[in-house]
């Protein structure tokens, strides 16, 4: 059971998407785990062959529990112990995502009548098949949004508890300092407008993509902010994985990472962000996206907020906040003009860095945004 967050203690295996004998390579999705915050796709970190699936769908296991055994290609299968550990033949365990859904005729009929999508129904029949009750339960959740809230209070409460634990720890342990600067976005937005004219409506870039890329590049300039504070020591991170806070419609938030944001071009970033938002809201994030962020961006500009003073997500040491882009009177070189401006803030962990380095980061951020064509 992978740790999918600093505060995660246990997770529930929702399903396997592989079976014993399947070849897997690094980065493949092999299953889905539900944490208190979301359903997360589990990636595999080694090439090999699935030897045994030890955890069963529906099982809740502590972090660190062995879910499956993957052997290297050519390595002897643990044939003798496999049946002893898991007597039912793996073939008998239905993998709903991989195979045809097992649905009773009655359940299928009722699902059609009630407009329930069977792909989202968890089967509880004698062999894991979807039966009448499962569809009826799903229909109740579907029909009445208030009833849905009642139906899944544990999940909501779980997410709230998880956020509470992480934020309380942050506030308790991390001596935050805050820096704030206004950044002129005139050049950046003009560049964006020109770029978007070259693109179809579907491929257009949003301004936040420029902000993300600029943060990623500024972290190259001030690497101490792209780091973890672990055991009273600063661990610099080579890769820049930017955690991007996404609020969920039903409440709560998740902070999946845009991996290697510094190495992606603007189109790739835009695509990555869209993909993350879609998957976060449908509860389908990958494990590495949840665990690997090295820094966090909170953008509350959409909501009209001007300035964000964020709380750092441990073990990270920095959080960059962006408010709304607004037009304000802007004096420069003795001239008054109107400029689109964003307020950028840095919340820094004072154990890891000082305000001086923080200020250098905001300056670098500003500089990158003044050269948008290099982003």
């Amino acid at each position: 059971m992978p740790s999918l967050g600093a505060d995660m203690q246990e997770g529930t295996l929702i399903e396997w998407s592989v079976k014993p004998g399947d070849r897997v390579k690094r980065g493949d999705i092999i299953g889905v785990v539900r944490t208190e915050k979301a359903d997360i796709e589990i990636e595999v970190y080694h090439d090999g062959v699935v030897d045994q699936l030890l955890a069963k769908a529906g099982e809740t296991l502590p972090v660190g529990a062995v879910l499956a055994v993957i052997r290297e290609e050519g390595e002897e299968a643990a044939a003798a112990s496999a049946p002893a550990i898991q007597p039912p033949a793996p073939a008998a365990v239905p993998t709903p995502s991989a195979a045809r859904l097992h649905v009773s005729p009655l359940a299928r009929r009722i699902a059609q009548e009630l407009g329930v999508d069977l792909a989202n129904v968890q089967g509880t029949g004698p062999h894991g098949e979807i039966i009448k009750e499962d569809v009826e339960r799903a229909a109740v959740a579907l029909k009445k949004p208030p009833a849905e809230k009642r139906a899944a209070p544990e999940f909501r409460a779980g997410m709230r508890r998880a956020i509470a634990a992480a934020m309380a720890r942050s506030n308790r342990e991390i001596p935050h300092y805050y820096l704030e600067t206004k950044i002129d976005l005139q050049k950046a937005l003009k560049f964006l407008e020109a770029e978007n004219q070259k693109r179809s409506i579907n491929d257009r870039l949003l301004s936040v993509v420029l902000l993300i890329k600029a943060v990623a590049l500024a972290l190259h300039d001030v690497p101490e902010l792209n780091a973890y504070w672990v055991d009273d020591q600063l661990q610099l991170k080579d890769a820049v994985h930017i955690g991007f806070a996404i609020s969920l419609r039903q409440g709560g938030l998740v902070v999946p990472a845009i991996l290697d944001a510094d190495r992606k071009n603007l189109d790739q970033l835009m695509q990555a962000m869209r993909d993350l938002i879609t998957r976060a809201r449908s509860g389908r994030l990958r494990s590495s996206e949840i665990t690997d962020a090295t820094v966090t961006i909170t953008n509350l500009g959409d909501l009209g907020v001007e300035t964000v003073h964020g709380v750092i997500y441990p073990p990270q040491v920095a959080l960059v906040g962006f408010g709304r882009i607004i037009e304000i009177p802007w004096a420069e070189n003795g001239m008054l003009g109107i400029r689109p401006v964003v307020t950028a803030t840095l919340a820094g962990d004072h154990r890891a860095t000082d305000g001086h380095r923080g200020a250098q980061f905001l300056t670098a951020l500003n500089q990158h945004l003044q050269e948008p064509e290099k982003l």
Partner: protein
Amino acid sequence: MSTAAAPLTYRDAIREAIREAMRKDDRVFLMGEDVGRYGGCFAVSKGLLEEFGPERIRDTPMSESAFVGAGIGAALGGMRPIVEIMTVNFSLLALDQIMNNAATFLHMSGGQFNVPLVVRMATGGGRQVAAQHSHSLEGWFAHIPGIRIVAPATLEDARGMLATALEDPDPVLIFEHAGLYNMKGQLPADGGPVDIDHARIRRAGRDVTIVTYGAMVWRSLEAAESLSKKSIEAEIIDLRTLRPLDEVTFLESVRRTHRALVVDEAWRSGGISAEISSRIQEKAFYDLDGPVQRLCGAEVPTPYPKHLEGAAFPQAATIAAAVEALVPAHV
């Protein structure tokens, strides 16, 4: 005549029915192997020879084909014969008469000749009489159009079905379960015919329908009691008549419970259990919340040793286990 209070056996109930019919209608007579002086190999006709005399209680030679054929002739001639065959295994010698004559005359005579024949025979296992006396072949007879097949499970049906069969203008085969002859019970004083067109719900339940007949009704009821302790309520359907099948009753039940188990001590392959299972999936498919299951006799000649014979037939414990495998644990 018996009184309501006197405890009777299944055997007594059948004898009672034969006696009543013979007293009421002098066209009725009984014939078969050892039915007279010996009193019947299951003692059903004990005492009847003394009461009705050898003209009406007739011992026959050991030739099932001959005495069933004679019964058909008598029926065609206006009599109301009751022909007793010792066990269903021996009835195979009379299968030609039953199928090619009794079941077809009405059709082949263009509706001129009904055959009001009643054939009684013992069926079923559980008495350690091995592979030539223990099988349940009523499903084979239920394959044949032109005859009616009934299988009484209760004293009331054992008595009443014979009366109804004698009223029927066409052939009726009554399969008495040999394991039930000693079953005790009460009977209302007034006998007479019972409805044989409908199955009966012997126990109501909401979680699963068990479709069965004969001695398996009682095994299933026993299983239902143990299942009830686990909060699984089984509905038990006693088919009573195997041809024509009262599918309305079991289909309605399945539409309520959404799950079905057919319990039949006969062999599984090509048996009546397959017919029932097939009708459920044909006509109640969209009401099924799980596959229709069958629990049948082992496909072996019935073993003689007690423990092996027990293992060859559905028992209360195996019925309960089959239901538990079918019904989700949380129901």
